[in-house]
């Protein structure tokens, strides 16, 4: 994983707490690092050039607050500038008209069809009655994909096969929607390259036929320097008014989104984070700024934790620990509630300063899968009271989970240690640790 900018800057500028102003030398060194970090995050070359010039201007002669190191001061400036560049606040879809029409377009493989399904589900959850229209008549089985996705979202899909004209399908689809009392129509279009003039012209015809209140460009978070060319070409052709950033569940920094925002001025409205239909979120500029900088995403983490940690479950756990009843089932619950937030490395990646720690922490999501497999191969009785697990049972559990007996032993030992540790903690009235087994905490997060 790449070094986070904050780590790099502290290295470059040293951790000395200097009072006073940042020297020109400091700033130049910092700007070099910022340039590298932004290029590695796929921010467009020209945007990087402008951006570093702005940061340099602000940083030169800036006061270093007493509580910050020079490196932190620069990071603060960079973060503020990035957030500003990304636009103010969270922007919603317009959804005007009856029915309101959303036109979804983008390059091949950016994730349009899946995103359409997600939008449909999201809109349905807000109490509206959406419908999907299948206008990708080119990619084999694209229509079937949308039909499947629509079925999963429980939203009707209007399609007329792959032989009809996309403009006609779109017009017809909206008529269908009107007749069936649907109030939002999402039009899925074929992926197209911006250099394909025929396809771009077709998109313009579809747009003119359906007159959308929201025209959304779908952009893969992994896109590199070319994102800017693509976005400009789509802007010239159909003047889209919102961006959807997809595949943010990967570890791409997503700098392309920043470039597109900076160059087109169009806000990012929605981000998607996985293949399941509920993996769609509103966009928060400051969080993407943090991600690009590798600064962690504490807010998102807190929000996720709030959503997913079941309060009752937590209380039940606390009671059990007080009584020293913490069994393997409880360990599994803990493990799962952490995992609901995402892969362990992505959860840890959201904590500031963890970027660097992770390299040594040896966090392995696969290991958690194995732990889960081992526990699931135990009987309920064994999970409640692991002391009864003798050699024969160990061999059976190992075979059942496809792991070795050594691994089963290691897990049992870990559980023992965890139980002991928890017993020790319950002495005070402190909060329960919400950490999975097998995970070493870096020192600054302990205690």
């Amino acid at each position, binding site marked *: 994983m790449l070094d986070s900018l904050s780590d790099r800057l502290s290295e470059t500028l040293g951790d000395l707490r200097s009072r006073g102003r940042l020297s020109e030398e400091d700033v130049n060194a910092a700007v070099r690092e910022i340039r590298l970090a932004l290029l590695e995050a796929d921010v467009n070359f020209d945007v990087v050039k402008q951006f570093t010039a702005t940061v340099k201007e602000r940083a030169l002669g800036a006061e270093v607050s007493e509580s910050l190191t020079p490196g932190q001061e620069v990071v603060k400036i960079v973060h503020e500038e990035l957030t500003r560049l990304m636009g103010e606040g969270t922007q919603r879809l317009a959804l005007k008209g009856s029915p309101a029409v959303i036109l979804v377009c983008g390059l091949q*493989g950016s994730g349009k069809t899946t995103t359409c399904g997600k939008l449909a589900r999201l809109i349905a959850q807000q109490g509206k009655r959406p419908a999907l229209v299948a206008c990708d008549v080119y990619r*084999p089985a694209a229509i079937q994909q949308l039909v499947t996705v629509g079925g999963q979202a429980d939203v009707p899909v209007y399609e007329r096969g792959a032989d009809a004209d996309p403009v006609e399908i779109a017009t017809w689809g909206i008529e269908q929607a009107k007749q069936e009392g649907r109030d939002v129509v999402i039009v899925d279009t074929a992926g197209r*390259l911006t250099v394909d003039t025929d396809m771009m012209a077709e998109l313009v015809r579809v747009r003119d036929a359906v007159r959308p209140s929201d025209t959304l460009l779908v952009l893969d978070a992994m896109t*590199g320097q070319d994102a800017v060319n*693509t976005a400009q070409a789509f802007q010239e052709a159909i003047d889209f008014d919102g961006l959807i950033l997809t595949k943010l569940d990967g570890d791409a*920094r997503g700098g392309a989104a920043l470039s597109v925002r900076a160059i087109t001025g169009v806000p990012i409205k929605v981000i998607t984070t996985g293949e399941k239909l509920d993996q769609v979120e509103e966009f928060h500029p400051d969080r993407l700024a943090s991600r690009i900088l590798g600064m962690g995403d504490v807010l998102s983490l807190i929000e996720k934790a709030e959503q997913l940690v079941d309060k009752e479950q937590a209380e039940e756990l606390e009671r059990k620990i007080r009584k020293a009843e913490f069994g393997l089932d409880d360990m599994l619950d803990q493990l799962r509630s952490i995992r609901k937030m995402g892969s362990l490395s992505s959860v840890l990646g959201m904590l500031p300063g963890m970027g660097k720690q992770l390299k040594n922490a040896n966090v392995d999501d696969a290991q958690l899968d194995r732990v889960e497999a081992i526990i699931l191969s135990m009987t309920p009785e064994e999970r409640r009271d692991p002391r009864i697990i003798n050699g024969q049972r160990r061999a059976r559990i190992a075979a059942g989970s496809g792991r070795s007996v050594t691994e089963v032993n290691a897990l049992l030992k870990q559980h023992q240690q965890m139980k002991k540790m928890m017993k020790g903690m319950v002495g005070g009235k402190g909060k329960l640790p919400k950490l999975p087994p097998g995970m070493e905490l870096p020192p600054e997060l302990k205690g």
Partner: protein
Amino acid sequence: MADPTQMFTGLGDVPAPVVEEAAAPADGGGFFRRLVDGLAKSSKALTGQIQQIAFDPDDSEAWERLEEALLLADCGVPATVEIIGRLERRAAAGGLAPGADLAPALAEEIADMLAGAEARIDVAERPTVILMVGVNGTGKTTTVGKLAEHLRRVGLSVVVAAADTFRAAADEQLEAWARRADADFVGSAHGQDPAAVAYDGIEAAVARGRDVVLVDTAGRLQTQVGLMDELAKIRRVIAGRLEGAPHETLLVIDATTGQNGLVQARQFSAATPLTGIVLTKLDGTAKGGIALAIAHELGVPIKLIGVGETLDDLRPFDADSFARALLGLDAA
């Protein structure tokens, strides 16, 4: 149409290809023409590119423009530094005359960086098993479909195994391609174990005496540990069924991919060793410089490129065209 045999090695004495000449592409100029046309259509793409062929090694601005062009092509900082370093050494040794065309020198360095590895797909084994891997949306299924057709054209019989059991309608998409390429199709039910589908594909090829098995897999992000484990398992099952298989494991990379491509490549090669890269979607405005960075880091060649939607748009990699496109240069 390009000679379809150029794509493969190990063809041996396969009976003469049954090629019905496809209609010549309308533009006639092939891969490079398309790239240039693409660039011309999108004038914005030329911003900051080196537009003149002449390169003066004593002009520091020329080096800066070169750096800019490579970074804008997604080569990334380390590979850009590497390329510039190589060209600087070449210039210092007198190998770059002022005003000379930079592209041939760059092409040579690129070929050298790719370790001069054999950039053809080896189909000598019977059956040869080719495994396609990559993140979502790079064009794996489309590439499998096109490859099936190219194999048919060189006279090889093909089994296509649809081990993408996850994405909605992936199976149907591949089946449509298999039909077009007249290949045997081994389908799957949604959610079925993909390793089992790969296994069935090899079984079918062995039983029916087919020459090549193409295994399409589901797109997966490298951060999805469960899915990466699944990929390792697919590979294990293939190797268990047929010794020496998979003979080719190709990572499919979208030319628009940025620096995350390196992380992708590392994780995929950890799950299943790669033998080559397929660089798709080069017909857009993206240059695909990331493939160079990956190929260099992993020491595997770029074997195929995709420059369009038609069958003939899947082609063998050519360092010279690639170098020219990276520089935004016109055809010589």
